[in-house]
């Protein structure tokens, strides 16, 4: 992973409660770069986040809301957050359930702009 991507992802993983962050190619769900805690399955996160945002895009488009920019799936034991960047990439974070969602969202948006 290049130092540039590492620095971008580190700003996300520095937020308390974030277990990992990654840059994902949206088309095929493959990992471009990652910064993950031990136990977080990077390939699975990338594939699932990519697939979920595609399904969500069908629902938002049919609802007249257009394409997703930010997605937040909240579970009882954790959360998945993703921001769409340009160039068909996603910035994804996996976090503890009590994470500061607003802060992670901001860092994801900044990371997407930096990658762009």
């Amino acid at each position, binding site marked *: 992973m290049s130092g540039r991507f590492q620095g971008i992802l580190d700003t996300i993983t520095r937020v308390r409660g974030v277990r990992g962050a990654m840059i994902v190619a949206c088309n095929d769900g493959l990992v471009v770069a990652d910064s993950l805690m031990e136990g977080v399955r990077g390939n699975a996160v990338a594939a699932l986040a990519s697939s979920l945002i595609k399904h969500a895009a069908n629902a938002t488009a049919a609802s007249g809301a257009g394409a997703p920019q930010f997605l937040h799936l*909240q579970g009882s034991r954790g959360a998945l957050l993703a921001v769409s960047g340009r160039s068909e990439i996603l910035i994804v974070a996996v976090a503890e359930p009590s994470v500061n969602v607003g802060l992670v969202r901001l860092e994801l948006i900044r990371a997407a702009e930096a990658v762009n």
Partner: protein
Amino acid sequence: MADDVKRMTAELVRDPSSLVFLRLGEVLRADGQVEAARKVALTGLERHPDLVDAHDLYARILVDADDVEHARRVWNGVLQLDPRHQGAHMGVGFLHYSRGDLDAALDHLELALAADPTNKSVVQALHAVRDVAESVVSEEPEDAFAGFEGQDRGILLVDRQGRALNGNVLGTEGRDTKDEVAAHLAGVTQEMERTARMLNLGEWKWLIVEADNGNAHLTPPDAASLLWVVRDRDMPSGRLALLADRAGAAARTWLEAQHL
């Protein structure tokens, strides 16, 4: 009644293979002696395992003992052996009615009536359930989300199979897209469940999507339904979550009314 019980018990002692156990079990059941009735029915079933009326009796005793799931299995077994068995259709119809599934209850009661159109108790039960079903339909609110802020933009309640239940969503150019959205939401939910399971996120609670022209919020008001709330981008996602909470409460009220 005590004399009847004594007489039938004596007959069973004299001839253990007698079918009088059916009548004896029924009398004991009607008298509230559930355990005694259960013993009589099980003893009879040991001697007559293929006698569907004995299984039917046993199922009714199980209902009296609050063992509803066991009763359902026994009656389903009876209907496999005898698809026109009136008692079993009555029993299964009763179980559906108890769960609030009036359509299924009516189906079974109509089959019970077809087996013997002269049975007055079946006729009475059928009329009673039809009356309840009609009253539920007449009380059904037109819109579960009437009066909600921006309700026309998008509040949609769907089932997990992707069918719209209540509410509406407008797509681009104001087109009604609720059926399309409902179908997509079933796919989104399956994908969320898969994601939550594989990433150890626990049970999913909600999904928020901020999109180009609107924000959306998906929650499960109960185990069988999904609620999709969409608003324009000028409603922040935190406020949208509060609106979705209130809409979820309205959805649950509406769903409970459907099950009465």
